[in-house]
């Protein structure tokens, strides 16, 4: 079954909860278009771990040789990146 935007969103938010610097942050309330690095939600290392975690949880690999991972630093862009990599 092809993954849906909402399905990936749920996985991304769950992963974000475990990686964001402020554990008290309500990640569900985050603007999906805010840059997680610039907003200080994640630092560089945390962001890469978060992206890795999302790949493991979804079973979908992002080709980091081809994809500019820094361009996937919003929730929305990451969801779309995962959907794109899944072939949808």
């Amino acid at each position, binding site marked *: 079954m092809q993954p849906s935007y909402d399905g990936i969103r749920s996985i991304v938010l769950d992963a974000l909860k*475990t*990686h*964001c*610097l*402020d*554990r*008290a942050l309500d990640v569900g309330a985050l603007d999906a278009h805010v*840059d997680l*690095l*610039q907003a200080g939600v*994640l*630092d*560089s*290392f*945390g*962001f*890469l*771990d978060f992206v*890795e975690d999302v790949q493991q949880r979804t079973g979908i690999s992002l080709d*980091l*040789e081809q994809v*500019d*991972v*820094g*361009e996937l*630093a919003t929730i929305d862009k990451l969801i779309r990146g995962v959907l794109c990599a899944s072939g949808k």
Partner: protein
Amino acid sequence: MLINLPQCAEAYAAMFGALMAGGIYAPNNLSAPAIRQRGVHEAFEPDAVVAAEGTLDVLGIGPTDRRWVSLSDLPAPLPRRVWAADDLAYVMFTSGSTGAPKGVMVAREGLAHFIDWALLAMDVRRTDRWSQHPNLGFDLSVLDIYGALCGGATLVPLSRQGDRLTPAAAIRRHKLTIWNSVPSVVDLMLRARQVTAQNLETLRLLTFCGEPLLPAHLEAIFAARPDVVVHNTYGPTEATVSCTLVRLTEANYRDACRASVALGDPIPGMDVWLAGGESDNEGEVMICGPQVARGYWRDPQRTAAAFGEAQRAGRIMPTYRTGDRAARNGRHLFFLERVDRQVKILGHRVELGEIDAALRACGAAACTVLWQGELHAFVEGTPSAVLADLRAALAARLPTYAIPAHFHSIAALPRNLNDKADAGALIAQLVAGAGGVTGAQPEYQAG
């Protein structure tokens, strides 16, 4: 002149322009919190600010205080060509322990000495294409900017977020031949599985400074590219970027590896020695020579505490006590820890860095802090269930009193603006959590 620009040609031109016109400049770190950027502006009190239009509100410069000047309207002052050794080149603001920015005054003599050395040591060629990764507010950028432009090479500013985070694509795209950054960037590339022969194909030299380079970094680099040269350098901002060098190749690097990679030998013209230790082979790193800064901007008290003078080659030269502890092992000098990370537990002298090194040897990236008389180790990316095993492994390496009472699993260690593990932020987490640590997984407490 305050330079309020990101890495770009205009910023580099402003630096050279300020120096040629006889001025001094201070670069501001635009990634820093607004309060820090404002603090630098207030402390430096510049006559002019070279800025992108959108960056001035952060500095607290209101619209009525601004008088925009077009570059084409400015008079062209005749470049001065004669300088006194002590004339300043730039003031680099670093974070001070009190929270107020501390301006390091680097003299033209120091900058010229450093760049003369860099051009020779790095054998800079006109065909080189050199990365410019460090933020302009971090003095490692001085090596890129002056090294490349004074050597006739091409300077490539990396300002895109993706290029800064995982630079492999930028290295390939720009066919870079020289890479310069803090070693943490290699960690980021390793996590993204980017340290490959293909990604590093165009590089001939990688140079690192700013934090300990680790054997694992070198193993990965030389596994990918056995034919590159790696320079590990050491030096505080107060000694103009760096003042030691060890040149590493696939053939010799193992000799320079202990818990971290050797700092190297003093560069020609600079003296580095160890003081205050139990022998000449261990102690606080002291530096003397033309690259030592002329003190802290408008802060005679802190200047007197850290800077001094010594007779050298028939001339009085400035000296600087670094607050870094190092030890000589064989022919190499190795960084141990900051002097201020030495703590006492039950009367025993304990180096927090030694605990971190032992954890590193057990395969864990960690930062240990002392809080309320007890040691807390924050371990990166390790499940809580594994922390008990880590403690057991540590018992084989450290005396009992040096084993942290508390272990915390943390997704990623907080890092400061220069990507170094931020012990202050970890203590702040303990203070904020006071019982339940915010930002960390449930802790494992040693029994």
